[in-house]
């Protein structure tokens, strides 16, 4: 599974660093380092919906507040 988080300016200001750090933590905590690849990109062209995240090319709008919920539902449940 490949998770990509936008770290472009707009998403960065909306807290993409917190999203990335939280995902890094959750991936490590659930021992998913071998199964989940986490990467960054600069802009997905949907700045209004930031923080922009894709999981295997499917788009999600995530915020630092909803990242745990997103991880449980879209990553942990499907991996």
């Amino acid at each position, binding site marked *: 599974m490949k998770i990509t*988080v936008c*770290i*472009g*300016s*707009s998403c960065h200001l909306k807290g*993409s*660093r917190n999203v*990335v750090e939280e995902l890094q933590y959750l991936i490590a905590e659930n021992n998913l380092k071998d199964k989940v690849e986490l990467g960054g990109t*600069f802009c997905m062209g949907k700045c209004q919906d930031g923080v922009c995240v894709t999981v295997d090319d499917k788009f999600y709008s995530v915020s630092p507040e909803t990242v745990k919920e997103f991880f449980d539902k879209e990553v942990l449940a499907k991996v």
Partner: protein
Amino acid sequence: MRKFDTKVQYLKYKVLREVARQAWNDTLLENLLEIPKIIVPGKEPTMRCCVYKERAILSERVKLAMGGDPNNHNCIEVIDIACDECPIGGYEVTNACRGCLAHRCEDVCKRGAITFDHNHSAHIDKSKCVECGACAKVCPYGAITDNVRPCVRSCKVKAISMDEDRTAVIDNDKCISCGACVYQCPFGAIMDKSYILNVIDMLKKSEKNSKYKVYAVVAPSIASQFTYAKLGQVVSGIKALGFFTVVEAALGADMVAFAEAKELAEKGFLTSSCCPAFVDYIKKQFPDLAPYISHNLSPVATISKYMKEKEPDCKIIFIGPCTAKKMEFKKEEVKPYIDSVITFEELQALFDSRGIDITLMNEDVLDNASYYGRIFARSGGLSDAVKQGLKEQGLENFDLKAVPCDGIDACRIALLKASKRVLDGNFIEGMACSGGCIGGAGCLTHGEKNKAEVDKYGKEAMEKNIYDAISVLK
């Protein structure tokens, strides 16, 4: 609204703008020979002896705007017919000499080179004069001038000399492509080659970023540029040109600061690798010190490498203050990551070639880097960042003695000392331009406030620590 420091820059800009305009419209080949006439219409000369010479020189500027002489690998070129063959006599007494009684000039001259004629006017015996300048300093009338060509004076690496026609020539074995002469020549006879046509071509062929994405990576010195508008408006303007998005080179600087701090702690002595002109200078003038050049790529190459690894088919254009970057991106180790380089001057020309008035645009955002990455743009910033990098990695025990060198003269002194092993320091921060990148030849304007602008921009960064900015890149 003052966009440029000098009229030479303005003239160069007009050429770039017109070439770009024709290129966007696919009419460049058709109208190529008309461009000089578009810029200088009518029959009255405005700059030179006649319109024909003006147009002949403009044709040469058009060539440089289109990439210049492909057989000359240096990105800095002399336009020989534009060179005014300025006087080169060194110290000379002008007719402002009043034939006074004091003769301070004679007393101060240790070589006995000053004599007086029957009118008591001073003369300098060139066979004795060593060009020390002491006489010029003491003359109460300022009657003694130093006739050194502005290009020669600006070239701190002594790469400029005269050919038999008294035209300036650049020794490519010495030139570090810093562009100081480009900015200083009052006749605009030395110019940097432009790659705007490659950039326009890449933007066009991307078909609005659908074929591949075109990224702009901007240097942090942009904070001191385009002062007639807001930075966010500049970002909007860059996107309006067709770039997919804008990324701060300063994020690459954050990465470099971290890696360079670590490398320094391991090796014990290092010279910085951010400034391509400084790196080139070491390789050409102090080859013995070349092994101590940091092995890190420059900030822009570092961030571009990250981006290309994530997205191999994207295109990356660096927009900055620097002419030497036009050499750096052609190096084997950098070539895979950066597709082209343009300056702030050229960005202004591109905006206007598309009729983009950035002052009317909404403010977009630009925030990728930390305070420390952003202050790389001014002299001393890199040293501060390396200090912070050591601290954040728990390497404070390493006793950093940074030697920030502002301009190539200061670099030379530090490198000389280092080569003789008498330098009181273990990290040479070398910046070829005066003030650091904010003094770059490709800047639109150079001013006292630029350093403060960069510091202000640094403080506006959301991330205050280097680690916070680069933690997302893992």
